[in-house]
């Protein structure tokens, strides 16, 4: 059943391995969330400017990635990514073999998925801002950058934060899927440990508790952030 002695730190147990695996999960989550947000900003921009082609491309991207299982997207990028990267390298005259490591591929794959969710959140937050605000800023003589960074940005952030918190939770849980690429995060470590020790229950329960810990505490963190950002409104 549940073997506590297998979870000690050091050579006898898997405690330190699981600590590193947890750090890896956090790293991948933060990296892919950040990359996903950047991608989401580009997607929102493509959806909101008055250009039909960019809008169609952006809509196609969000519809397809949200309509297809995450696992399939990860498989596609994991197995197909190298081919794409190599053919791009060929265009620049490099003919050697390139292999992306699991961390890069996993981060890109999860970012690709999380960007579709973030883009919806950001779009809604952008549309929630009153047009009068932009007009008022223009009347004050602010230029485009000032309007974006001083007027729009902070308000978008405030409107988007609850949604971004949700996307973060989804992203954190989705990182468990990139265990199929061989990256040693919590889920992969769990499979390795339970195969060695023949005690899957111990390590799976540990993994579940670790994920629960991560989601709960990051949820609390986002709550605090939300409170902080809506200070002027309560």
């Amino acid at each position: 059943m549940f073997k506590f002695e297998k979870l000690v730190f050091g050579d006898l147990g898997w405690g330190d391995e699981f600590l590193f695996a947890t750090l890896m999960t956090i790293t991948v989550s933060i990296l892919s969330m950040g990359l996903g947000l950047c991608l989401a900003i580009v997607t929102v921009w493509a959806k909101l400017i008055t250009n039909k082609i960019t809008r169609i491309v952006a809509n196609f991207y969000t519809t397809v990635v949200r309509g297809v299982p995450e696992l399939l997207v990860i498989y596609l990028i994991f197995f197909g990514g190298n081919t794409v990267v190599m053919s791009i390298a060929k265009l620049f005259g490099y003919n050697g073999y390139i292999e992306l490591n699991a961390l890069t591929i996993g981060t890109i794959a999860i970012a690709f998925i999380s960007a579709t969710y973030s883009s919806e959140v950001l779009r809604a937050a952008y549309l929630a801002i009153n047009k009068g605000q932009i007009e008022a800023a223009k009347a004050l003589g602010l230029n485009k950058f000032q309007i974006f960074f001083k007027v729009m940005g902070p308000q978008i952030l405030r409107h988007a934060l609850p949604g971004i918190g949700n996307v973060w939770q989804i992203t954190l849980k989705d990182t468990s899927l990139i265990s199929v690429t061989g990256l040693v995060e919590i889920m992969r470590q769990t499979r390795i440990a339970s195969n060695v020790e023949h005690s899957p229950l111990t390590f799976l329960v540990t993994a579940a508790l670790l994920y629960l810990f991560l989601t709960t505490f990051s949820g609390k963190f986002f709550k605090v952030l939300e409170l902080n950002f809506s200070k002027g409104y309560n």
Partner: protein
Amino acid sequence: MQNFLDYFSQSLLFRNFIEVLMGLDNTLLLLIISLPIGFILSLVFALGRVSKNKILSKPIAGYIFVIRGTPLLVQIYLIYFGLGSIEFIRESFLWILLKEPFWCGVLALTINTVAYGSEIFRGGIQSVTKGQIESGLSLGFNKFMLLRKIILPIALRKVLPSYGNELILMVKATSLVSLTTYMEMTGIARKIMAKTFAPVEAFVAAGILYLFLNFLMVQFVKYLEWKYNPHLRVEQN
């Protein structure tokens, strides 16, 4: 045109498509069993969650918290590998079901969707205004009638869009059951990939099918929304 059709029917993508289509029934089987059970249990759990009885609502809140805080993959592995390692379960009658990856998948998907679904339904039930309940009481409805005639119809149609989202998430979640050696569409796509070394064709074929499934699901939810929200229909002319 004939040339093109010949070329297309012999292309790898098309052949993969046919092969992946053979796994469609396995994917649908997972959904057909876990979605209705999940729906009913979600309703029951949501009612338990909003009840004033703490002995009832607290454990349900804990269950929802745990399931929503852990990835589905962990839940599937826990049921498939974890339960199988307990001596007591291996010797009980449950083992007949739990040794099959299919039933493990159904169990995990149901447990997962009930947690999310009951949170959605709870939102709907709590959004029923007090005046509507009072008007029911003034008509002399008892508790069951109140639930059956007022609370549930109002709550259910209100949460249809978000429950539709959950249904789409469930369609996508069935792909994870392939990691327990169950051969549904993703599993077959994975097998094709290992056989042909052409990952893009294999996974794009499966992706198209999943998109199609989700498209049908969206249409179904849209139809339900149209049917049960007659007051929101836009009249023609």
